C-alpha cells in the first residue's frame, strides 16, 4: 500500500485539488473521472508493449550511445507512442459518450483527460519504476506526474475544441503539442548543452502546472449555454 501511495501521491493530490477548487455548483463528475482513469490505466499496456518493441527490435533505444538514436527512441516511444495511447483512449471514451448521447461540458472533458494522464503516470510508476527506489518515485511525483497531468489538460482542451468544431484538426494540433513537450522533457539533455540544465524538467513541469492551473481557474464548471439535452437542441435548431 505504501508503494502504491508513493507512486501516486501527487496524482491523488492534483486530482483532489482540481475537484475542490472547481465544483461548487454541481456534483464532481467522479464517474467520468473514473472512466477516464480506467482508460488511462488501460492505455499503459499498449504503451508498454509499443515501447518494448521499439527498444527490443529497433536501434532507437533510449539508452543508446548515439544521441540521434536516443532522441528518436524518446520521440517515437515516449512522445508519439505514449501521448497517442493516452489521447487515443480518452478519445475513445469521448466517442462512446457521443454515441451514448451523454452530455459533455468542457470541465468534464478536461478533468477526464487530466484524470487519464494522472492515472497513466501513476500506473507507469507502479509498473516500470517502482523497483528503482523511493527517491526516483518522489522525483517522479514532483516532475513526471505533473507533466502527464499537464498533457492531460492539453489533450482535454484539444478534445473539447474538436467536439465543439466537429473537426479532427484540434486533436492533431493538441497531439502535436503534447508530443513536442513530452519529447523535449525526455531529451532536454540531448537537445541542450549539458551542465547546469538539470532545472529544465522541473521548469517545464512548473510552467505546465501554472498554465494548467490558469486554464482550470478560467474554465466554468457549467455548460456554456446553461441549457441542456433535447430542449437545448431544439432551441439551437
Amino acid at each position, binding site marked *: 500500500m505504501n508503494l502504491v501511495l508513493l507512486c501516486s501521491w501527487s496524482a491523488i493530490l492534483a486530482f483532489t485539488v482540481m475537484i475542490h477548487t472547481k465544483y461548487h455548483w454541481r456534483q464532481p463528475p467522479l464517474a467520468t473521472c473514473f472512466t477516464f482513469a480506467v482508460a488511462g490505466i488501460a492505455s499503459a499496456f499498449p504503451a508498454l508493449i509499443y515501447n518494448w518493441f521499439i527498444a*527490443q527490435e*529497433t536501434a532507437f533505444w533510449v*539508452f543508446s550511445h548515439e544521441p540521434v538514436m536516443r532522441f528518436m527512441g524518446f520521440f*517515437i516511444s515516449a512522445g508519439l507512442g505514449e501521448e497517442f495511447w493516452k489521447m487515443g483512449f480518452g478519445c475513445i471514451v469521448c466517442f462512446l459518450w*457521443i*454515441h451514448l448521447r451523454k452530455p459533455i461540458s468542457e470541465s468534464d472533458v478536461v478533468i477526464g483527460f487530466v484524470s487519464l494522464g494522472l492515472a497513466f503516470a501513476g500506473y507507469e510508476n507502479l509498473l516500470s519504476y517502482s523497483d528503482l527506489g523511493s527517491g526516483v518515485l518522489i522525483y517522479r511525483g514532483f516532475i513526471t506526474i505533473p507533466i502527464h497531468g499537464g498533457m492531460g489538460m492539453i489533450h482535454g482542451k484539444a478534445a473539447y475544441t474538436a467536439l465543439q468544431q466537429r473537426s479532427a484538426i484540434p486533436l492533431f494540433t493538441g497531439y502535436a503539442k503534447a508530443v513536442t513537450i513530452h519529447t523535449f522533457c525526455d531529451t532536454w539533455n540531448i537537445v541542450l548543452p549539458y551542465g547546469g540544465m538539470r532545472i529544465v524538467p522541473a521548469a517545464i513541469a512548473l510552467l505546465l502546472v501554472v498554465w494548467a492551473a490558469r486554464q482550470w481557474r478560467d474554465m466554468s464548471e*457549467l455548460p456554456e449555454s446553461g441549457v441542456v*439535452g433535447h430542449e437545448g*437542441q431544439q432551441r439551437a435548431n
Partner: protein
Amino acid sequence: MTGMRMQPSDSDKVLPPGYPEASLQARPVGGSHLRGEYILRFVLVCLSVLVVAASLAYIKFPQKNPPMWEFLMNYHKQNKSFWERLLEHARPVATQLDKWRQAASSGHRVSSDATATPARPGLSGLTMSKEHLALRETALAQLVLYDRYKLPEEEVWATVKKTRSVGPFRDYEEKRFLSEIAWMTYQDDKANKEILQHLRRTATELVQKPSAIFEDYLNVGITHLLTGDADVAIGYLQEALERWPAPGRARGNVYLGLMIAHATQGHRQHVFRMLAGFKANYPDWLYVETYIPDLTQLTEVYPDAALLHVIHGRLREFVYDYASAQESYRHALNMADLDIVGKTTVRNWVGTIEDVALP
C-alpha cells in the same frame, strides 16, 4: 449547419442563485447526426503513423544489440515484476540486502549473517560523493565492456575521460581504471614481466592515495607476491583482509593470497591454521581448476617453498583428488624448507590417504 451549436454568452457562464437544477447538466455537444467520425479519423491516422514509424524503424534501423542493452535487458529480466513484488505478503520488513546497505552506509562492516560489527570509518565505497560514484560506475561499466565485449582500450578510456566528474578523486580513479585494464592484459599474458612491474608501481601509488580502498590493498599485495616480495605482500594482504567489507568469493581470494604469502615465507603455523579455515573462507574451494593454476604459477616464483606444495596437496585432498594430493605431499616432504612439525603433520595426512582412500 451551425444551427445546432449553441454560442456561449457571458451570462451563461455564471450560475445565479436559484438557477434551475436541470441547467446544471451539460449540453450535448453536436447534434443528433454527430457520430464522432473525426475522432475515429484522428485515432486511425495516428495509429497508422505509429505503425509506420515502428515498421520503418524495424526495417531501416534494426537493433544492433549494444552490450549495455543486453546488460540492462538481462537486469530487467532478473527483477521481479510489480505484481510479483506486490503479492509478496510474507516479505520481511528489511531484507538481507537492506541490512547490508544500512550497515555499510553507517560505516560498519558486514558479516554473512547481516549483523554489523564496528569497522574503520571510510572503508566502504558507499561513502563516496555522488560525483566520485558516477566516475567509479562509469569506469566499472567500461571495464566490463572491455573485458567481456572486447571494446578497444582507446574507446573505453575515452569514455572514462569524458565523464564530467571533477574532484580530488579524479587522478586516483583514472589511475585505478588504467591499472584494472593492465590487470586484464596481464591475465591474458602472464609471461609479460613488464606489465607486472608496471602494475606493482601503479598499485603502490594507488594504495598511498586517500581514496584507496580494500581492493587496492589486495592489488598491491598480489603484485608484490608475484614479483617475489612476499614479506611485503603479507602486510598489504593482511590489511586487505581486515578492510574487506563482506565475505564472499572476492574476500576468499584475499584469504588464499595471504595463505600463499605466508607459505612462501615458511610461516607454518599461519598456513596450517588458514588451511583449517579454508573451506569457510573460500566459497569456491570445490572448483580447484579455477585457483590451482595460480598456485602452480607461484611455485615457479618461489621454487623452494615447501609449504606451497603442502597447500596444493591439501586443496587437492579437499576435493578427493588423492593421487595429486599424495604427489604434492611427497614433493613437500622431500624439501628442506619444511620443519619437523610440518613434516609430521603432512605424514599423517599421507597416511590417512593411504589407509582410507588408496587401497
